[in-house]
């Protein structure tokens, strides 16, 4: 069973998947305690992709997990042709609960930020996207600021005096965030290609000041001053570009 909705421009989609892993809790309202903001699931359909893709949880409400996904990847290709979604998780560590944090997101990076803000009722948030269509799809608390290009999240956020900051978004945005907030208590939610999602295969390596760590097992949220090179994730994240072209060829 799946339920989904695309943004008007087709760039993003929200996917709902029933989540019935009650753990030991009999009361379904307790389910929320098993999944924390910052954690992710490995997601696929019965027909593919071969390697499930990691997606951060956007929301968990009434036994329904919600994911915010950027379209154009291989997952979406299979998703369109399958009525069922298979999830495995949750994996990864929860985002640290900070006091009065400033939350920053760009594009699909809004997923963990949204879940974090909803769960802990945080209100100081700047959410960036390429255009308005994004904001017609996702829900953004009225207390937060939304930006669309050419205005960026950081054009607004740089004026915030808050000490604690968490950011998730495209690599160039994270690089700039690390630069602007280098003297604050900044955390970055990182992305890297994963295969197992559970710390075995050592594929999602990230260089930190205390040696090699793994985005799945040690992250995905890291203190910014621990990360050696934020830009290292560039080419991994841009891989979608090839898949988009293949998808375009098929549509013609």
């Amino acid at each position, binding site marked *: 069973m799946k339920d989904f909705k695309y943004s008007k421009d087709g760039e993003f989609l929200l996917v709902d998947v029933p989540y019935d892993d009650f753990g030991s809790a009999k009361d379904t309202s307790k389910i929320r305690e098993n999944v924390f903001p910052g954690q992710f699931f*490995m997601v696929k359909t019965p027909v*593919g*992709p*071969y*390697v*499930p*893709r990691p997606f951060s949880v956007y929301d968990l409400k009434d036994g329904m997990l919600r994911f915010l996904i950027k379209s154009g990847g*291989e997952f979406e290709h299979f998703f369109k042709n399958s009525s069922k979604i298979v999830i*495995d998780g949750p994996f990864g560590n929860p985002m640290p609960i900070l006091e009065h944090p400033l939350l920053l997101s760009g594009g699909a990076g809004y997923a963990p930020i949204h879940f974090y803000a909803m769960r802990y009722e945080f209100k100081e948030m700047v959410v960036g996207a390429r255009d308005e269509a994004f904001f017609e799809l996702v829900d953004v608390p009225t207390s937060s600021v939304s930006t669309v290009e050419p205005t960026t999240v950081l054009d607004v956020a740089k004026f915030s005096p808050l000490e604690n900051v968490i950011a998730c978004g495209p690599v160039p945005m994270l690089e700039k965030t690390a630069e602007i907030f280098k003297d604050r208590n900044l955390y970055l939610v990182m992305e*890297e*290609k*994963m*295969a*197992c999602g*559970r*710390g*075995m*295969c*050592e*594929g*999602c*390596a*990230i*260089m930190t000041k205390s*040696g*090699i760590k793994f985005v799945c*097992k040690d992250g995905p949220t890291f203190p910014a001053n621990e990360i050696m090179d934020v830009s*290292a*994730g560039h*080419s*991994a994240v*841009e*891989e979608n*570009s*090839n898949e988009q*072209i293949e998808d375009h060829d098929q549509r013609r």
Partner: protein
Amino acid sequence: MNKLKITIKGVEFKNPIVIASGPAGFGEEFFEYLSPSEIGGFTTKTVTPFPKDGNKPPRIVYVRSGLLNSIGLQNPGIKIFESRIAPKLPKTTRRIISIGGESPDDFSDLTSRIEEFCDMLEINLSCPNVHSKGVIAADGKLSKDIISACRERTNKPLIVKISPDLNVVEQSRVAKESGADIINVANSIQGTRFNVETGQPFLKRINGGLSGPAFMPIILWKVYQVKEAFPDLPIIGLGGVTTSRDVVEYAIAGASLVGVGAEAMINPKGIPAIVRGVGEFLKRKKMNFEDIVGAAHKGGFE
């Protein structure tokens, strides 16, 4: 009677499914998802003389029906392995320890230090992601010296893991003549992909090893070739297994044990179902696993 049982060089495996070296690490996380008693054997990640950080990220690229990896033998080195990891390897499955290095001395030293902790040793001559000059298996003389050096240090069965990018029959001949007992066919095949937007490779190291069902027919053929050339040499068939049917196919081609790599990594909980599926197949065919090994070389099932 257990139809899945197979004995190789005096070591009994309760079923022919062996977890390949790499994707399941040293088992710490892996065995949270299944009991070691459900699989025939478990191969550790390759251990080297010194700790290795592995390659710079990105290390993984998704491809249709598979993936390319460039991990680079990241491991804590023999010192930590022999003191903290090896003694804890589960004894309810057959323990295969994979070793890697540069010289015959590296390999023989590792052999002496780990042999008490395992049921078989696997000599990794074919990791595509470490040596700038190529895999060790490309050098017949060096391969021979390494295998002979290990042979002198242990009586336990020696597996040699060969490369699918080179002549598999020739590599198997060198391994057999140098004292190897079993051939693992094969490591991942080398490949790459480029980002069409930037014109650059996705992997920092350009090339990586392809695994997953995309390359199963290639390895199946190589298993067949080795079995045809050396009918008495036991083979571990490794490459792209995702179902019990794949396991049976490998046995038909000539594999006595069947490795599971990428699938163990992405769906560890699904492994027992693969084992069960092979059991059901054998029951339906009224055969034992040992009977179907190499069936393709005898004109199929009798």
